């Protein structure tokens, strides 16, 4: 059938690399925007209620850091939106009918809210009333959060496509239910988990910067009060994050079992599955999941994976080999083996080709219906028609495995950090716990690594699919030369890295200068 050798796979890799680069950079800035938005909103609310100049200046200081960070988030976000068209043009056509809508809603509903009120927030201190300014600060954060909602709706649809059907006349997927797309359980989970993770990062940032002032014995009142707001907010966000993480894992198990299997390096599944804490997986090589039953040096918590994935300690969790060979799901239905899915996918492609040909030749209704019937029965496997072998459908396990552990481990670390800070703030003198202050400072870079790890789990685990089970990456790309995309990759790499260096230095200088109290 379709010969994937016609596609320049090197170009596919560069297109993926460019999108990943942009998304990684974008995700360096967005979480801080989302997290700081709430924290500075809380601080300005205290100012509004108390009239205290101290809180006004405190809020203004964090807003200054917010502003430095905000511009880079906006800039990288612009590139991301248009890269769907520039690098993934086939994808844009095949699912644009569904995927474009959340992006348009994001622009109309969220971006304008954010961009309008961010200007009032920065420039309106002496121009608008206290109430209007406070509303602007919260509306800026709300705009950023609504924006996250819609982009995560779009992303969740790629993880778990719902509310659409394929139209053989237009040769694309078309939306049948906006509510199914916008309120999909995967989208709700992803939004809650992602935004909470951003709040945690914002809290760690505030805690870390405040700790630095205490270490330097500067602005101690400002630092102690910021530390209190950051730690309490951070602890609440982290606890909620853990709850949402459990729910997300359950959803992943139901909708993307291969992703869960890769996250766990679960080669051969079964009932009563333990959750791996750590195992000896070579980070630079795809493990031999065909030969081994489990990775070496595995330390695990009994039954925990079954509980996480099925809400039942005896629940069945499929491993990579089970997914390739086929298995029986909890509801008794049979998940087809990969070979059969590939065959059905090729049938769907052939039926679609025959339908198009018959229609062009003016075939009668009965003939067309017969082709359509074949197409519809095999359509759920359409994407598999472009797959040749099992190695293509298994994500790169080491990245998924280690990223997942970094993400979960980081979450646990932050709970501990926030609890310790709150303890020292209320029971002792936190400025004397220098080890804790240093740990808080160190947690700033760690929080970024943890945050990026979460993104890597979500996106690497989806591979090789642009849209889960529907469209592999090599069918979603634009027709470009590998050298063209490689060149823009390096241009963006140089540009983003230079700007990141400038931003970090400006941030450090601004922090060093401190709040103007």
């Amino acid at each position, binding site marked *: 059938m379709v010969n994937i050798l016609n596609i320049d796979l090197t170009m596919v890799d560069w297109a993926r690399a460019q999108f990943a680069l942009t998304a990684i950079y974008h995700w360096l800035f967005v979480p801080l925007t989302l997290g700081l938005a709430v924290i500075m909103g809380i601080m300005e609310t205290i100012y509004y209620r108390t009239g205290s100049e101290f809180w006004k200046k405190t809020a203004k200081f964090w807003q200054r850091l917010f502003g430095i960070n905000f511009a880079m988030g906006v800039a990288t976000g612009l590139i991301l939106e248009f890269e769907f068209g520039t690098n993934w043009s086939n994808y844009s056509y095949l699912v644009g009918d569904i995927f474009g809508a959340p992006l348009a809603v994001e622009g109309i509903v969220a971006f304008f809210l954010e961009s309008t009120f961010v200007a009032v927030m920065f420039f309106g201190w002496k121009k608008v009333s206290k109430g209007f300014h406070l509303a602007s600060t919260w509306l800026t954060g709300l705009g950023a959060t609504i924006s996250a909602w819609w982009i995560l709706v779009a992303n969740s649809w790629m993880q778990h496509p719902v509310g659409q059907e394929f139209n053989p006349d237009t040769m694309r997927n078309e939306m049948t239910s906006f509510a199914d797309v916008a309120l999909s359980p995967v989208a709700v989970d992803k939004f809650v988990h992602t935004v909470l993770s951003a709040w945690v990062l914002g809290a760690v940032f505030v805690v870390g910067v405040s700790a630095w002032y205490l270490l330097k014995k500067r602005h101690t009142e400002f630092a102690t009060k910021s530390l209190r707001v950051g730690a309490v907010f951070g602890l609440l966000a982290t606890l909620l994050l853990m709850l949402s993480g459990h729910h997300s894992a359950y959803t992943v198990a139901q909708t993307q079992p291969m992703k869960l299997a890769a996250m766990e390096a679960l080669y051969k599944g079964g009932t009563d599955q333990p959750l791996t804490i750590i195992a000896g997986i070579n980070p630079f090589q795809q493990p031999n999941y065909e030969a081994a039953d489990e990775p070496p040096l595995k330390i695990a918590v009994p039954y925990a994976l079954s509980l996480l994935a099925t809400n039942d300690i005896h629940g069945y969790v499929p491993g990579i080999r089970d997914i390739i060979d086929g298995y029986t799901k909890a509801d008794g239905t049979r998940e087809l083996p990969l070979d059969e899915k590939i065959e059905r996918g090729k049938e769907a492609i*052939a039926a679609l080709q025959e339908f198009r040909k018959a229609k062009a030749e003016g075939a009668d209704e009965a003939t067309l219906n017969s082709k359509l019937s074949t197409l519809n029965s095999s359509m759920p496997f359409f994407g598999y028609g472009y797959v040749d072998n099992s190695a293509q459908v298994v994500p790169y396990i080491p990245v998924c495995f280690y990223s997942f552990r970094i993400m979960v481990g980081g979450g646990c670390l932050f709970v501990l950090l926030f609890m310790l800070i709150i303890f020292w703030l209320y029971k002792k003198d936190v400025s004397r716990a220098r080890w804790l202050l240093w740990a808080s400072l160190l947690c700033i870079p760690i929080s970024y690594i943890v945050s990026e790890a979460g993104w890597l789990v979500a996106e690497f685990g989806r591979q090789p699919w642009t849209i889960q089970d529907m469209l592999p990456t090599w069918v979603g790309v634009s027709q470009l030369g590998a050298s063209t995309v490689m060149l823009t990759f390096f241009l963006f790499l140089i540009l983003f890295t230079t700007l990141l260096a400038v931003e970090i230095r*400006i941030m450090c200088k601004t922090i060093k200068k401190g709040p103007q109290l």
Partner: protein
Amino acid sequence: MTYAFLQHYWCFVVALLAALLVFLMFVQGANSLIFSLGRNADERRLIVNATGRKWEFTFTTLVTFGGAFFASYPLFYSTSFGGAYWLWMIILFSFVLQAVSYEFQNKMGNLLGTKTFQWLLVLNGILGPLLLGGAVATFFTGSNFIVERNNIVDPLTTPIISHWANASHGLDALLNPWNIVLGLAVFFLARILGCLYIHNRVDDKLLDKHDRIIRPLWSSTILFLGFFLAFLGHILTCDGYAYDPATGVIFMEPYKYLHNLLEMWPLLGLLLVGVVLVLFGILRSLTRKEWKRGFWIVGLGTVITVLVLLLLTAWNNTAYYPSTADLQSSLTMQNSSSSEFTLRTMFYVSLLIPFVLAYIVYAWRAIDKKQITQDEINNDHAY
């Protein structure tokens, strides 16, 4: 609401967003003049701060334009962005530079120095309007692409539906002189709007503005009129890309855009209104030193004129994104739009637009009650 109505409606919304984007490129226009309007560091900073309070609107409108085009005409999105890769990449690159240049340039610790970022603003001020104008011109002049839906199931070819027909990936658009002509017209229009915005926003005492803007305003006006009228004359006399709704066939029709204007006479009236407003606003600003509303009058004229020009490329059975490589690959509202369901759903979302516009106006007025002064730059939040 019929499918045809929704296709026309979304074409209108996208064209309106594009028209607003052209108006909002006053930010780019003023930035391209940073070094000629601002004669010292303080004056340059004043100009940067004047446009710096509005750059987000331009940026957001660009993003929303992209999102709305994607949602309503996904085949255009995939064909144009995936095909004219280099053209769009250069545009995007320049906008990234703009986004950070405001925030970073006067901050302590800026590794690259203030002037570097000001020159990046100038670069965006030139490339943004020039290339976006050139890209818009291709709606009249055509682009070098091929669309073949059957590729997705053809075992003998790549399963990619649309692609550029040569290796230039969009740079060939810059070889068509008419694309350059419209690009230059948009560039000089942006400079006109930029001059008028500075006149409107910055405290008189600071720049002695009217005297300062008069020269670039005159030169930009003359050049804008030359390029714009040449382009208008060209499109009203050239063959256009027509579409037969009965057969779906696309064909060349002499004087197609002139016919469109005459057959959709309200658009002709609007075009005249738009052009008159632009000319009136410019001329009155040139002759009345104390009159500062030129920015709004010319801005309104710009939105109306650009809106009409864009609607001419799509309404009245016209192929809005013509292919010079394969005429039948040309995109029309009918063959490239989203499904009726998606367009209808998005229609309901678009009812929020008046509400969005209302709060933008409210916030804009709140921020712009007074002109920008040196005192504000020194003692309040400033770039």
